[in-house]
């Protein structure tokens, strides 16, 4: 039983890490697009963020899953299920991260930009040396919330039939007529979140060497 759960947990962790790996940088790009002075771009990104945050992730997952066939007539193999989950998770979480980045970037005082400008920093230098490091500290608590939510959201992949941990636990509950698999899965989710919270607290402590 534990073996099945752990195999499922492996899949859940894969969804988790691939989503972070894709959505963290994609969120930066979206946030910069959202803050662009080029109106069509910022408008388009705003619309994207609004749709991604305003529709269910489960629906997005199915849309990505079925789109190749219904829109383009492409027959996808069974492996595409996994890809579809990753794509929809990355696209969805990038929208949430982008909003957090945006609020963090906008909370930076003008004076920081002006100091950098007068010292001759280019726009990318200002962003990477002055703004981004400070934004990371400011948004860490909000990012923590999202990341913890992501751990639990991986269970949404159940609905598409991906054998992640919740899918496995449900199958076990049905076959063994016992609640124990649910309890174990819950425990594993919870411990995962505890580990993440611990890591986040450590990161916050490491960044507490200064305050502004």
């Amino acid at each position: 039983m534990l073996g099945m759960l752990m195999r499922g947990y492996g899949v859940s962790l894969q969804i988790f890490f691939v989503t972070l790996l894709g959505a963290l940088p994609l969120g930066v790009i979206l946030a910069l697009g959202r803050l662009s002075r080029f109106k069509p771009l910022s408008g388009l990104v705003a619309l994207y963020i609004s749709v991604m945050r305003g529709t269910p992730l489960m629906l997005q997952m199915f849309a990505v899953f079925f789109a190749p066939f219904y829109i383009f007539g492409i027959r996808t193999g069974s492996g595409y299920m996994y890809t579809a989950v990753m794509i929809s998770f990355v696209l969805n979480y990038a929208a949430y991260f982008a909003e957090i980045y945006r609020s963090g970037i906008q909370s930076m005082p003008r004076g920081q930009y002006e100091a950098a400008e007068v010292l001759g920093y280019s726009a990318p230098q200002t962003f990477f040396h002055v703004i981004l490091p400070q934004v990371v500290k400011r948004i860490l608590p909000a990012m923590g919330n999202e990341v913890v939510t992501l751990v639990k959201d991986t269970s949404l992949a159940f609905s598409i039939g991906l054998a992640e941990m919740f899918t496995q636990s449900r199958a076990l509950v049905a076959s063994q007529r016992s609640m124990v698999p649910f309890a174990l899965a819950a425990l594993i989710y919870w411990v995962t979140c505890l580990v993440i919270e611990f890591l986040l607290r450590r990161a916050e402590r490491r960044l507490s060497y200064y305050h502004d």
Partner: protein
Amino acid sequence: MTNRSRISIPRPDQSFASFAGLPAVYVHGATKSFGDRQVLRGIDLIINKGEVVSIIGPSGAGKSTLLRCLTLLDRFDGGTLAYGDVVVAKPASDGSGIEYDRESIPQARMRFGIVFQDYNLFPHRTVLQNVTDAPIIVQHRDRAKTEVEGRELLGRLGLAEHADKVPCQLSGGQQQRVAIARALAMHPKVIYFDEATSALDPRLTAQMHDLVRELARGGMAVGIVTHEMGFARDVSDRVAFLFDGEIAEEGTPEEVLGNPSDPRTRAFLARAED
């Protein structure tokens, strides 16, 4: 425009055998409007090497706008601006407005530094990094040499033992000196102070006076924007009194503050003494 004391202004767009005689800061006929409101109405100002010039005046006179335009954080919409032989902006060739030279702007930025009123230090960087970051990142100077120089600079400003702290661990006066070190590390020819002494007690103000004079002795051109008459009088070689977007009066501190000829200066000083 009528009461301005005239000074002979060398034109940087004429050819000079040597640039040594050019003023460090040259502003001629500079104007700036926000919408319908004209904030600067033809400013003429020069600051020479080794000279301390204070720009004083009531709030709303245009001091901040002038300083923002001088430091290229904002743009004049008419006139000429040059740092030594680097002509940043001159009247447009078709006679309408002003033309900023894209290529001169980065060069000009390397010629001046500014100590902001609230310092705008980088809070996430140590004191030393605040001083060495820009030379390393922007000027691509050697890291090791820059750090040696940075520590030396901090030592001269009495901050040696604070080099590895972060700004929030320092007092306001110390933070201001970090901001000065950060500006000086770029080897500017001009340094501007925005309200140099507004946050300082009398002892620190005296220190600031000595520091500014020392910088000027070393050949630095110093521009100070302030509304504190006492400091301006003591530290400046020349004082320009800005009123309603015009330099109403300009001269030595004794002339402008001791025996003002412009009625607006007189009125302002009378009020300032209350």
